[in-house]
Structure formats: structure tokens, C-alpha cells
């Protein structure tokens, strides 16, 4: 299995998740004006997350790997490696293209819940793998916000 953990690589991946999220929500807002307020609000929040991860990456560049990791059994790093390999979590898929097959606001809301779920699944692994020094608390705060997005999307779906 490809190892070891590379902080730059995983934070870049987190940035890409947020970049995809913002792009997805903006395209969804354009396609379905009836739910555009929600989607544009979520897009702005994903932009903020992107900035947070980008800042973390800059702050942590040059830090010794040993200082960044708290993962005694290496399980979280293996999980991140699997996610980064793209086999079970495809970051290269264009979210706007995926949107092309969704024809109703309901379909898009469901897809958005899946997008948020994938982000959280990755960030939970990231949080498990890194030390406090590497920003565990910031990652937890972003996870909470992504959970809040799921709440918003789910409530809209039930309207």
C-alpha cells in the first residue's frame, strides 16, 4: 500500500473537495433557481472551508511529519491513502458533469447530501490522523459545518 502520509497531499485533497463543492453548488443554483438561495449560501461556506484548508497547508509546510501525525496504529493514514488513491472516492469527476443527469431539484438535493457525506467521510479520517498541532480542532469545526449543510439540505428535501 502506498504510504507514508503526506500532509501536503491530503490537505490539497481537502482543498479539491471544497473547490468541487463550491463549483457544484453554483452550477446547481444556476440550473434550479427555485433553490438557488440555499445552494449559493452553501457555495460560500465551501469557499471559506477552502481558504481554511489552504491556510492550514501553508502554515504546516516545512513542519516535520512526526509533529503533524497522531495515528499510533497507522489505520487512519491507510484510510486516507485509500481515499487519496481515487478508487473509492473520485475527486477527478467533474461535479458539473454529474449534475447534467439530475433533472429535478429533489435529485440535486439528494446528490448534494451525498457530496457532503463524502466530504465528512474524508475529514473524519483526516481528523483521526493529525495531531492537535496540525489543526485537529479546525477540521472538527469544518465537519460540524458540513453536518449543518446536510441538515439544511435534508430539511429542504422534506419541505
Amino acid at each position, binding site marked *: 500500500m502506498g504510504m507514508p502520509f503526506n500532509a501536503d497531499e491530503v490537505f490539497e485533497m481537502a482543498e479539491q473537495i471544497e473547490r468541487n463543492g463550491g463549483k457544484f453548488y453554483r452550477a446547481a443554483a444556476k440550473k434550479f433557481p427555485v433553490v438557488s438561495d440555499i445552494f449559493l449560501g452553501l457555495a460560500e461556506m465551501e469557499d471559506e472551508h477552502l481558504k481554511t484548508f489552504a491556510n492550514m497547508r501553508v502554515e504546516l509546510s516545512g513542519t516535520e511529519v512526526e509533529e503533524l501525525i497522531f495515528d499510533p496504529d497507522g*489505520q487512519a493514514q491507510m*484510510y486516507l491513502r485509500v481515499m487519496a488513491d481515487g478508487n473509492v472516492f473520485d475527486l477527478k469527476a467533474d461535479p458539473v458533469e454529474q449534475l447534467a443527469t439530475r433533472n429535478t431539484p429533489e435529485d440535486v438535493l439528494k446528490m448534494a447530501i451525498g457530496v457532503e457525506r463524502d466530504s465528512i*467521510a474524508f475529514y473524519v479520517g483526516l481528523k*483521526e490522523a493529525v495531531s492537535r498541532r496540525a489543526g485537529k480542532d479546525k477540521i472538527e469545526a469544518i465537519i460540524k459545518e458540513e453536518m449543518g449543510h446536510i*441538515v439544511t439540505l435534508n*430539511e429542504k428535501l*422534506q419541505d
Partner: protein
Amino acid sequence: MTVTFNAFEVFEIAEQIERNGTNFYIRAAELFGDPDTCQMFLKLAEWEKEHELIFARMKQQLSEQSRQAGTSEADDLLPDPRVMAGLAVFGMRSNPAEELRGRQEKTDIIRRAVEKEKDSIVFYHGLKEFVPAGADKDKIDDIIKEEMRHIVILDQSLKQYE
């Protein structure tokens, strides 16, 4: 209107997630002729069964605490029930046997299993927020780590079939 859940119901959903996982893996094992993959699915089913028992014990403890406090289970409100209502969508997916009907492509089955594991990780991370620090929180953390390990195992298997 948003449906909300009390703490007792949230543990019931966690049990249901694990029950669905067990049934899914048992059914998946039946669909694979290769003994190694079949064994992998049966082992995953066994681990999910163990998780179900852990959540059942937590639910029982909660029930006993409510009884001792003279309150009903329905009174065990979550600090923010909206969050778990949002996440509950991951615990209320379709019947696993139905999911695998007509879905015979091996890589599709393994990918579906990965999706189920992701659902579990996200739901349990939300659940953990509502459990006081201590033994139960640690147990949920352990279960999350085990679900991550399942994804690693499934990914290795997926590579064999691609």
C-alpha cells in the same frame, strides 16, 4: 416538517445500520464464488454484528438510566435533534437484500459496500457528539476506526476485480 429523534431512537438507527450491513455482507458473500472474497464478506458481516451488539448495549443502558431517573425514553432529547434527523437519512436506506437484487457486477457490489461504510462513519461521527466523554464515546470512536478499516479491506478487494 422535520422529523426529529430522541437519544433512544438514534441508537436504534445505529443498530439498524449494523443489521443492514450484516445482511448486506451475508448476501454479498452468496454472490461471490471466490472463497477468499466470500470469506472477507462473512468476516465483515461478523464485525458488523459485533457493532450491533455494542449499540444494543448502549441503548439498553440508556433505557435503564431513564427508568432510574423516572423519565420516559421519549424524554431523552438530543441537544440538537435536527442534526441527527439530518444524518438519519444514512441509516434509513433500502433493504440490503433488495439492493443486491439484480446488482450482480462484482465491482458494483464492493463499491456499494464502501458507500454503506461511508454512511456509517458519518452517522456515528454525529452520534459521538451527543455521547458524554467516557467509555461509550471511546467505543463509538473504535467503531468508526473499524469502519475505516473495512473500507481499506474493500478497496484491496476492489483492486483484484478491476
